[in-house]
């Protein structure tokens, strides 16, 4: 467990390290700057301070995991949030410093009048696959009801041992699958939205093509993540059939393969192509910045712009999309996602 937590800290350090360098051209620590600013002495100094914060916070997290004089579970649980919090503080400091060098982004807005592609990669069957997997698991559970243990394990500790049981009822048996389905629907909705309805920032040239590829990749990653959730949820559910009440779900290494593979793919793509599929180096046809006003970003992390009809916008800190918190549908969507764990807790 200590090894696993240490690896997580190192991975997180690496992710936080590359974040400022995968941004779109003209974005530095969440602020719109002049082209080439990121190689200036000021930018190097700001980036250096941020990196020093990362190193210190990561070393502190590792020290906490290995040598802190209190119980292991607690210190491991604390290490990652401490590392993230310290890194965020470093980012916010850098964001404030870069604001002194901010410049106005593109004011002229352009849009392509070409209608968007209407085909989803892999088609509808691939898209709906995660829901079919959980539906299949649900049918298997219903057909083998009498073989399910009673009481039923409903929660496992980090070592994979069941630590909570409940009476065998429809709620305790099917709730986990329903929650997985619910989360998957949210991910699939986002995947489709990214592919078809997010803003096309670069409208022509190689930059536009790369941006379309970027959306396609993010669509596939989200659908694969939904498959991962479905497969893990379905396997956990099915393995209860015919098992003793103290069943260990087992197979944890297998469950780790899928998220690690997805994470590796995202990291590879982010490093190779960068945010928006064009990254810092840019591409012919790329616009300066991301067409969102700096004034609507808090610390380069949170976007709030009621005047922007976009539901999702490209992140300025990191890779992918974030919500426009000025859009009421973003709040509705987030509340629905947060309702899922609550439903699970109530049902079991």
């Amino acid at each position, binding site marked *: 467990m200590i090894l696993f937590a240490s690896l997580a800290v190192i991975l997180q350090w690496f992710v936080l390290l590359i974040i400022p360098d995968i941004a779109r051209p003209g974005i530095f620590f969440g602020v719109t700057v002049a082209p080439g600013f990121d190689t200036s002495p000021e930018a190097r100094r700001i980036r250096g301070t941020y990196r020093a914060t990362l190193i210190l916070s990561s070393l502190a997290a590792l020290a906490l995991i290995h040598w802190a004089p209190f119980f292991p579970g607690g210190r491991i649980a604390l290490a990652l949030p401490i590392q993230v919090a310290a890194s965020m503080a470093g980012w916010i400091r850098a964001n404030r410093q870069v604001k002194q060098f901010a410049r106005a982004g593109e004011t002229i*807005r352009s*849009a392509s009048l*070409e209608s968007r592609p209407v085909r989803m990669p892999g088609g509808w069957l691939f898209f709906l696959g995660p829901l079919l997997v959980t539906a299949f698991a649900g049918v298997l559970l219903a057909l083998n009801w009498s073989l399910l243990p009673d009481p039923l394990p409903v929660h496992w500790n980090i070592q994979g041992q069941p630590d909570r049981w409940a009476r065998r009822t429809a709620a305790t048996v099917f709730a986990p699958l329903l929650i997985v389905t619910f989360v998957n629907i949210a991910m699939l909705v986002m995947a489709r939205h990214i592919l078809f309805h997010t803003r096309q920032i670069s409208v022509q040239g190689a930059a536009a093509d790369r941006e379309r590829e970027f959306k396609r990749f993010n669509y596939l990653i989200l659908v694969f993540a939904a498959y991962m959730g479905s497969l893990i949820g379905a396997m956990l559910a099915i393995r209860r059939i015919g098992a003793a009440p103290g069943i260990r779900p087992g197979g944890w290494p297998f469950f780790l393969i899928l998220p690690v593979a997805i994470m590796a793919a995202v990291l590879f793509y982010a490093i190779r192509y960068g945010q928006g599929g064009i990254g810092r180096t840019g591409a012919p046809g790329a616009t300066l910045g991301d067409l969102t006003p700096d004034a609507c970003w808090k610390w380069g992390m949170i976007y709030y712009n009621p005047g922007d009809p976009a539901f999702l916008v490209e992140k300025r800190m990191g890779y992918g999309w974030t919500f426009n918190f000025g859009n009421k549908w973003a709040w509705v969507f987030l509340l629905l996602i947060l309702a899922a764990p609550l439903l699970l807790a109530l049902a079991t």
Partner: protein
Amino acid sequence: MTSPPIVTIDPESDVPAYRQIVQGIRRLLVDGVLEPGGRLPTVRQLAVDLGVHFNTVAQAYRVLADEGWLELRRRRGAVVVDRKRPAAPDKERQDYSLRRLRELTAEFRAEGMPVRQIALQLRRLADVIEGAS
């Protein structure tokens, strides 16, 4: 690779955004860049791309539809029409036109024009329109 047709707006301009969109698309239509049968993005999509309210794009599309350039399809964007064969207006628009015609005849009657003469003129007008079509 050819460049896609592009519409551009300046949010800081004194010209309202919807009018800038109308002017941009009209220019592409007049130049033949957008050809009959071609589909434009949905209102939502163009609004998101330009960072303007949905109603702004909807208004621009309505203006172009009223001019006979576009046929609006609910949730499916707009289709460029051949202006030689303009699409039939929707029911709302037809009702509005008929109402205007009735109001006009009522106005003639209020001004004292004989009913028979109004009917005669309308019949003649109908003959001319049918003859032209």
